[in-house]
């Protein structure tokens, strides 16, 4: 290994890959049967965290940052004047294996700029995965990027070696895509997604009949959308996320607050704030849709196209729907419990288990871990004390905000501060 050369390439190509937020290593059940190297952990492991607090679980690099496209939001776009580099296939394999053996990573996340054409690039990505699996007997996690416009044959092969495949649609609206990435067509993104989804469905059906059917992308597909680059509403983002979850059976949709990287009139200027709070609210909404049984039009609709930045989306839904409350935690069904602000799914399960033994009061709920500062206005329990005043939504919101603190509070607070 030529240490200096690899070091230089790694710095360039890891730097270019960092805007991909996905670093999940969960969901794969690939096991080490032949005394080889690696064993996927079903729950995923974060081996370290970056200084911005994101999980580092995979070696996330580009194969190359040469690219024929000129997408405005992308740091490796053709017109950007940056240092370019490309890894050899063997170099990526060596890095992955040596990092993995030292327990630095769960596996590889390989993406790439598009050089020559889509198929040529995809072929190289597949070659890396194939080499890892077949020559190195590697059972760790491999996440490959599906290159927009890659052929069905290559996508099929990719799924045989990778645990997860992803295409980043980046811009949630078709009009936004035309504006920011004029060379790319919407169909280029969806075609590989559809192929992979169909293969996953086919393999799952076959496994029911023949148990030894090989694995095909066991951790499914994911995608990513940039938030705050093309003036879209939260409704646009969440509706298109719901569409991708349903149509392509996505395992995850990621939301990435746009980090300004270019002077371009179509985009927020360099130095403007990364919309981290908005990103956070979108993830909260995503969770409500996937785990709490909410429908997207309950949270975002024509009257409410954007999420409330001051309070979380569940609380904001509850404040708009006070007629559902208060809920009695000792009798309500699971679905309803999950809708009380301040009660998470773990608390829901604990409450369901515990209330078989006795009726729960405030003290029990507090110990179980319910956030009572929010929950107290929306529930009753085995106690003579509960919120009896006829409070309206604004009042409750004010009282909750007063008794809590938030990291981003200063960004949206309408209260004037006295001392600066």
């Amino acid at each position, binding site marked *: 290994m030529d240490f200096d050369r690899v070091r230089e390439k*790694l710095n360039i190509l890891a*730097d270019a890959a960092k805007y991909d937020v996905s670093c999940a290593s969960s969901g794969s059940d690939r096991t080490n049967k032949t005394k080889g*190297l690696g*064993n996927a952990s079903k729950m995923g492991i974060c081996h370290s965290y*970056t200084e911005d*607090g994101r999980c580092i679980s995979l070696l996330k690099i580009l194969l190359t940052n040469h690219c024929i496209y000129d997408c405005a939001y992308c740091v490796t776009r053709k017109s950007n004047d940056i240092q370019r580099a490309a890894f050899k296939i063997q170099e990526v394999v060596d890095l992955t294996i040596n990092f993995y053996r*030292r327990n630095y990573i769960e596996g590889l996340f390989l993406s790439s700029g598009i050089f020559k054409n889509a198929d040529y690039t995809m072929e190289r990505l597949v070659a890396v995965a194939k080499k890892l699996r077949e020559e190195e007997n590697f059972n760790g996690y491999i996440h490959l990027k599906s290159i927009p416009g890659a052929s069905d044959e290559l996508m099929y092969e990719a799924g045989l070696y990778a645990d997860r495949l992803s295409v980043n649609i980046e811009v949630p609206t078709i009009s936004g895509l035309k504006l920011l990435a004029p060379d790319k067509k919407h169909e280029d993104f969806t075609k590989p997604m559809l192929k992979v989804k169909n293969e996953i469905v086919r393999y799952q059906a076959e496994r029911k009949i023949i148990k030894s059917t090989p694995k095909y992308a066991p951790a499914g597909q994911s995608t990513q959308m940039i938030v705050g680059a093309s003036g879209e509403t939260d409704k646009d983002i969440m509706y298109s996320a719901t569409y991708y979850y349903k149509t392509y059976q996505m395992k995850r949709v990621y939301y990435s607050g746009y980090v300004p990287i270019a002077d371009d009139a179509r985009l927020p200027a360099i130095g403007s704030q990364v919309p981290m709070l908005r990103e956070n609210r979108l993830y909260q909404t995503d969770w409500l849709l996937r785990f709490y049984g909410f429908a997207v039009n309950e949270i975002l609709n024509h009257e409410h196209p954007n999420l409330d930045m001051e309070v979380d989306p569940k609380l904001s839904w509850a404040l708009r729907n006070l007629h559902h409350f208060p809920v009695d935690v000792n009798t309500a069904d699971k679905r309803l419990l999950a809708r009380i602000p301040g009660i998470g799914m773990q608390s829901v399960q604990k409450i369901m288990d515990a209330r*078989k033994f006795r009726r729960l009061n405030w003290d029990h709920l507090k*110990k179980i871990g319910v956030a009572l500062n929010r929950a107290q206005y929306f529930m009753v329990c085995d106690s003579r004390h509960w919120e009896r005043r006829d409070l309206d939504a604004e009042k409750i919101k004010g009282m909750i905000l007063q008794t809590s603190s938030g990291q981003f509070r200063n960004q949206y607070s309408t209260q004037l501060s006295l001392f600066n």
Partner: protein
Amino acid sequence: MNASTTLIYDSSFNGFLTAVFVAFDEKISVADIQKNGRCQNGLFSETETIFTHVEKAKRVWNGIRNKSHNAISNVYFAFLSETEGVEMLLFDYIQKLMRTQNGKYLDYSDSTVLHISQLARKVGREKHRMEAFVRFQLTKDNIYFANIEPDFDVLPLISKHFRDRYADQQWLIYDVKRKYGIYYNLDHVEMVSLNLKDIHHNKIHKSDAFVNGEYEYQTLWNDYFKSTGILSRINPKLHTQHVPKRYWKYLSEKKEAV
């Protein structure tokens, strides 16, 4: 009235289970269960020393497991937390568990049950952290070596994970605090104690116990760590919440920060 008894055991998990067995078998009213060497006599209780008996321990283990798989792992995890007084808490938990019909004893409004499940969760988190924060360094004898300093005694819990994952390399994980390690010799995992001269922190100074390439890979990893962070999103509070400072000295990517 029966005088209550303090049971003294040899601080192993089997020893504890034997104590539980004896307590049930002889219908002892237990005042306390204590580790030997750390015992303190009660004013009105007798003491009895328990000799570890694997068969007896196994019967208790199976008894709990037959009630609930969840319960046995809770008991084991909570025991490894090494919390003071955890033995009596566990004894109380096991008694309550055994009284139930179907073994589904999940009364989180009971303080013992809640406490045990919280302790087990703490240990589980530490186990998961160790699966993440172990950093192997390749020695000249071709052994991947790591030293760690976990909050709880999690080595027995992580051994399977590493055995399954690194089946084709020799590795050794050494607990600096509890002075023992686990070593995988390409066939099975065994317990070892080492005469470790110096602890291998990821200090700037390099040890000659490791192969030449070792520090190159550490450099590459540190570089990767730096270039994958996004400066305009920096959030030190969240960072230290995920990677608490007490682990930094064993993580090569944090060596400059220590």
